[in-house]
């Protein structure tokens, strides 16, 4: 559904920051094909890899968390990552639905 005034993910991000956690916002900025979550969907990740929200149906969250931790470690402002269809025979991260998504990572500072 449309971006909701009630969605609490950004409020949660601010709560995390107030408790001295480092926070990266991960936002779906583009989709192709049958991607599970629409543009504007979001998750937040801290330096320990705790996360809330989602950018897919659980397919790529692990990889996003890893990238977010990396972003914090290298103290980079932002990064764009793309996920494509997964190869079913391999245990690799990808979208089983056959869609593609671009996720934008940005540190809150």
């Amino acid at each position: 559904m449309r971006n909701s005034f009630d969605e609490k993910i950004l409020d949660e991000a601010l709560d995390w920051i107030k408790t001295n956690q480092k926070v990266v916002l991960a936002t779906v900025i583009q989709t192709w094909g049958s991607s599970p979550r629409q543009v504007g969907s979001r998750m937040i990740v801290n330096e320990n890899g705790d996360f809330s929200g989602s950018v897919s149906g659980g397919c790529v969250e692990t990889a996003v968390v890893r990238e977010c931790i990396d972003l914090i470690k290298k103290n980079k402002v932002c990064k764009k990552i793309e996920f494509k269809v997964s190869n079913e025979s391999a245990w690799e991260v990808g979208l089983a639905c056959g869609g593609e998504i671009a996720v934008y990572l940005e540190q809150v500072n």
Partner: protein
Amino acid sequence: MNIKTLEQIIKNKSSKVEFAIVTNLKNGESQVFEPGQKLSGDFDKFQKEVENFFKSKKNGIIENSDIFVETYIRPIKVIIIGAVHIAQYLVDFAKSLNFEISVIDPRGYFATSQRFPDLKIVNKWPDEAFKEIETNENTALIALTHDPKIDDPALQHALNKKFYYIGALGSKKTHGNRCQRLKEAGFTDEQIKSIHGPIGIKLGGKSAPEIALSIIAQLVSETYNK
């Protein structure tokens, strides 16, 4: 994103001011846009595009640019007539679905804050209550009292204001009588047919949360069809 921007977003969300977040994907800079406001800095040349995204309530990247726009629009207003048991569950479901609920019930013993802790109940007759609630074609009505004295004036208001969703609780017989009364009040068959009655999609359940679920499912479906 700057923490100040994040704080402003949260402020706008809680005061229900419509806005958009505009982000430069190249450098991570972002700004909050509100209708009628001028964008500053590097964003100013995208003013028109951002306004267009906002008008069409779209999220996405502006073509041939690195500018990402995310729009936040006000929730859809849903008026519930009757602070009854089903309404308590509807309020819970609606919370996560971007609906803004108002409950109207002239009966003081139903409309208590103990029964609806986080909600302001309008403890007035519908005709009076609608004087203080702004409504239009983007409003939905769920009539739950199945008492003609309370439901009928609300249904008439909703039909006159062309609410996009109107539902009324009650059996086929109750609904038949209701339709007859509305006809006598001068409403056309087409108008009367637009009322969802008996309300909700067929789930088979009879308990209050089950009926609330069937109503909210119908409301979501009609919201996407409008």
